[in-house]
């Protein structure tokens, strides 16, 4: 097809403004002059200039100008013209092909494009290569882990099978076209992968990624991430400081999707967070945030940096859609009950193995890694062979970063994230946008009464009230594998079969009981063997689940469990559990934990003290189960 025919078929090409633009400064300096001249010639001809006149003015022959036009506009009818690209001197426009026969020992003809020619000449070579690559890409059971060496081996096998003359290319080269084969492998793999992606028969599913409404609290994202660093802690036990290397803790973060504002976080000293950690995260986000006093030197909050819960009652936190993944702790009844039953929110689990839906929260984990986790020496890096990983020499020592510093640093980083202006938000900070949405748009409001009632770590439950008079013991209720007794139950035992209990998940030594009519029955107490330290539901569940496996002494289960962890404190994972349990046990203590000291014994038969509301614990009474 000549340049004149092309212009007749595609008349819009008469306008040079329709041609692609190639900036002159993007070309090598030695080709700029000729490119500008060619451009000038073409523009003049497209504007109606005579070919001979234009050629004369440019000091070129008419044939050269015609050749230039053919280069830019000519070519195969089905293919696209080169256009502006054709004006660059020596630029390869057409696909290169070998015209001469292949090189042989009889006559050397060079090896340019020989491999490409070979692909078409040798029977089954092209198909064998394609089958090999496709099997790998489709992950077929007979697919190979293709290396360039293996691919070259297959190349040699097919040539031998086809009885290819030994005096012809590739046998004329020293490497037997190894480099060409290697390059073809990578090029063809990319092409086949691209074709497969374009051939996708099913359209992408609509999973609600298109947002039509942008509003604070419309949707939030929650996820967990194992921090890429190990920390240290000094446990104060019996007036002794025990240094420990901790395992990698988990961070749970909650983000508002439309304002990208971080609502809060929770560092769970465990490898696998549970429902208790999820509810603690909700509690952290809903409880008004107060700027803590930082113990780490030189670490301080930026001015105005905070979490939205610190903004006051005018900006109550609530949830529209809670986007999670399919982790077990997200499917806990306590979490579903809190999110769906209390807040009326939508729980969205998303498609499996599709973290794109929660890209915001994943990007925040990357932000934490860049800002903190990957900067300290005790980092583990992103993968086992990461070069930034802590050296073997330092791994033998306890890290410098303490657990307290870790919590404080992440608090500072996330509050600063909230306070940093973002281009995607119109140069507003997430916190400012959150405030703007709340003050100028309609955002759902939670009244004070409901806010007080909906405590994530407080639960209610209806339980049967048991009283077997033949056993000659007081009425009791069963809760978390234990019998709870209290003076109030005796009064209600004759009238009612079921009562309602209120519990705090962080300390289940005592519960508060009510009749179903709302009459207060006072507190009920766990057996004295479980009264020694405050403990969470998850700790009690763990002890019951593993008591046989680890042969825990159930006369004093909490201390036994602590001793077990203490014996294995050199294992970073157990050290992490030790820290969690230590934090639980000392949550109400002002002094350090005293594990082996005993207090004055009290009689077993005495009812629980009503003034202090909590019975005193001692080893003597722990030996007798109530």
């Amino acid at each position: 097809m000549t340049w004149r025919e092309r212009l007749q078929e595609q008349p819009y090409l008469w306008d040079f403004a329709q041609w692609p633009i190639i900036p002159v400064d993007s070309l090598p300096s030695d080709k700029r002059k000729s490119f500008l001249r060619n451009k000038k010639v073409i523009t003049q001809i497209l504007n109606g200039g005579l070919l001979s006149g234009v050629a004369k003015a440019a000091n070129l022959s008419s044939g050269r100008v015609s050749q230039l036009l053919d280069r830019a506009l000519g070519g195969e009818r089905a293919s696209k013209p080169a256009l502006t690209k054709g004006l660059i001197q020596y630029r390869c426009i057409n696909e290169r092909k070998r015209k001469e026969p292949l090189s042989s020992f009889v006559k050397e003809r060079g090896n340019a494009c020989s491999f490409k020619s070979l692909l078409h000449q040798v029977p089954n070579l092209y198909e064998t290569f394609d089958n090999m690559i496709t099997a790998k890409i489709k992950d077929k059971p007979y697919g190979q882990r293709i290396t360039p060496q293996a691919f070259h081996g297959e190349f040699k096998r097919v040539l031998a099978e086809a009885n290819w003359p030994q005096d012809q290319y590739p046998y004329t080269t020293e490497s037997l076209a190894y480099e060409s084969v290697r390059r073809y492998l990578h090029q063809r793999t990319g092409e086949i992968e691209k074709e497969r992606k374009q051939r996708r028969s099913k359209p992408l599913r609509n999973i609600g990624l298109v947002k039509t409404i942008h509003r604070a609290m419309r949707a939030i994202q929650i996820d967990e991430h194992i921090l890429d660093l190990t920390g240290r802690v000094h446990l104060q036990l019996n007036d002794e400081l025990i240094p420990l290397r901790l395992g990698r803790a988990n961070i749970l973060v909650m983000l508002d999707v439309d304002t990208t504002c971080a609502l809060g976080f929770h560092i769970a000293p465990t490898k696998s967070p549970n429902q208790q950690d999820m509810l603690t995260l909700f509690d952290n986000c809903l409880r008004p945030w107060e700027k803590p006093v930082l113990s780490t030197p030189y670490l301080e909050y930026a001015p105005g940096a905070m979490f939205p819960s610190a903004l006051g009652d005018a900006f109550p936190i609530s949830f529209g859609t809670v986007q999670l993944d399919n982790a077990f702790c997200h499917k806990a009844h306590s979490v579903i009950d809190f999110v769906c039953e209390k807040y009326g929110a939508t729980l969205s689990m998303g498609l499996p193995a599709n973290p794109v839906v929660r890209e915001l929260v994943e990007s925040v984990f990357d932000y934490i890694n860049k800002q903190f986790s990957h900067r300290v020496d005790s980092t583990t890096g992103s993968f086992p062979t990461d070069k930034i990983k802590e050296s073997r020499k330092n791994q033998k020592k306890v890290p410098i970063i303490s657990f307290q510093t870790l919590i404080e640093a992440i608090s500072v980083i996330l509050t600063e994230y909230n306070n940093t202006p973002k281009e995607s938000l119109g140069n507003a900070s997430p916190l400012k946008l959150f405030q703007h949405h709340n003050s100028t748009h309609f955002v759902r409001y939670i009244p004070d009464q409901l806010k007080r009632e909906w405590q994530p770590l407080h639960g209610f439950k209806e339980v049967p009230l048991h009283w077997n008079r033949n056993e000659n013991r007081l009425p009791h209720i069963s809760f978390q594998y234990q019998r709870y007794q209290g003076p109030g139950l005796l009064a209600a035992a004759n009238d009612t079969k079921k009562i309602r209990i209120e519990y705090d998940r962080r300390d289940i030594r005592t519960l508060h009981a009510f009749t179903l009519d709302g009459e207060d029955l006072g507190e009920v107490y766990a057996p004295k063997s479980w009264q020694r330290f405050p403990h969470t539901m998850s700790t009690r569940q763990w002890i019951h689940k593993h008591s046989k496996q680890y042969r825990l002494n159930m006369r004093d289960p909490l201390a036994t469990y602590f001793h077990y962890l203490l014996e294995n404190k050199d294992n970073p994972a157990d050290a992490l559990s030790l820290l969690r349990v230590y934090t639980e046990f000392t949550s109400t203590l002002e002094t350090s934990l005293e594990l082996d000291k005993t207090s004055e014994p009290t009689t077993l038969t005495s009812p629980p003290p009503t003034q202090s509301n909590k019975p005193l614990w001692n080893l003597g009474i722990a030996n007798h189960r109530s």
Partner: protein
Amino acid sequence: MTTHPLPFDPALARLVKTDTLTPCQQKTRPNFKTACDFRQKHMIKHPFLSDFHCWAEYLHAGLLEGDPTVTSYIPQPYLLRIRQTWYTPDNYVVRSSQPRQIEELKPKGEMPEDKQIPLTHYFAQQGFKFVVISNESVYERQIEAENWLEIVTILHQSKNFDTADAEEILLESLYKKNNSCTLGDLIDPGDRERTYMQEIAMFRLLHQGHLIGALSETALDYDTGISL
């Protein structure tokens, strides 16, 4: 196809079997919960924790909440057997003065005929109507559906508040304001606590169909129009 005096073909209807026709939400299997785009939410017209297996089902539930003719609906109402395969329809919808409707949501509204034809005849035998709704028709009304889902969230949160007096006062004040106003006229953005009951009363009246809101074009906001 042979013609029958009955509005359904008994031979085709017999291909579908079930233990009961009392609609009750079928429990989603744990494996399927993980495999699909699963959502859970407490609704108002289905006052339990409702399961939705895709984005279209979820939006459609929002549209049903906003439809004043719909009195109630039940997602995943039956477990049916068509020949050798199990099948659960997406919705059982009760509309005032209309036959019960069993709905199935499918991309482009296309359902395999080997299932659709027996189901149509089976439900016609029971006096129900079986319809296939296209996902695309639901996506077109995304804003409206999301607005209604937001209202459902608010109404569920405030389910224990009594707003009978506030509803009466609100209707009276609307009569005085030429039957229309905006959300900003009823809610004080500076003191939401003070006008909270009025806000809930307004949403309840909207949900019951006594008020009409301009919810199909833009997100719920202070300038959203409300009329009688």
